[in-house]
């Protein structure tokens, strides 16, 4: 089964990555959207656009992510994404 890990706390990113399997995806929401530049993000990674916009980070992150495989998604895509994985794991 593949899982979508949902992370809202940037200080727990390393612990979360540690618990993931290769086929899993990671969605950064709330404060964790500040971690898009983290060097350890080798898994499929998404960042929630509304949370980036709220913090004034949307443009900045898009500039920095030109060559990255991080996908920026909105709430509609967030809802659909939870259905593309077998389960979600909110890493608290």
């Amino acid at each position, binding site marked *: 089964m593949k899982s979508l890990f949902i992370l*809202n706390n940037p200080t727990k990113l390393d612990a979360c990555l540690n618990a993931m399997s290769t086929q899993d995806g990671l969605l950064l*929401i709330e404060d964790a959207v500040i971690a898009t530049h983290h060097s350890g993000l080798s898994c499929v990674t998404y960042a929630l656009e509304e949370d980036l916009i709220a913090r004034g980070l949307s443009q900045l992150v898009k500039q920095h992510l030109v060559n990255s495989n991080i996908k920026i998604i909105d*709430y*509609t895509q*967030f809802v659909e994404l939870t*259905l593309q994985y077998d389960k979600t794991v*909110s890493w608290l």
Partner: protein
Amino acid sequence: MAIFSLLVTATPYSAQGQFSALQFVRVAINNGHSIKRVFFYADGVLVASRLNHPPSDEINLTKAWAKLAIEQDIDLVVCVTAALKRGITNHAEAERNALTGENLDPAFEISGLGQLTEAMLESDRLITFG
């Protein structure tokens, strides 16, 4: 179309989880999905007090949940143990526990943890907002 349930444990005004959960529910419904239940646990139960009264230029989370629940017929359930501990009570629980007052918003219902397990088993996805 899928059936979702939510587990919400975030403190109402100090954390963002309640805002995120509300947004998730709104968007899921707009996209044609349905919400079986929102289960409030740990500090998340604090949102069920009808006395919550933020400044007028801020969203009232209690009223936002209540509005959504009434319009979309969503089950808002508050865990009884977590609630009583944190001062959230309805008339029946107040009488049973000899408390002098009650504050549960009528859009919410107090029940046991079994409602969470049931929601897990009867939904396509359980999403936690902590």
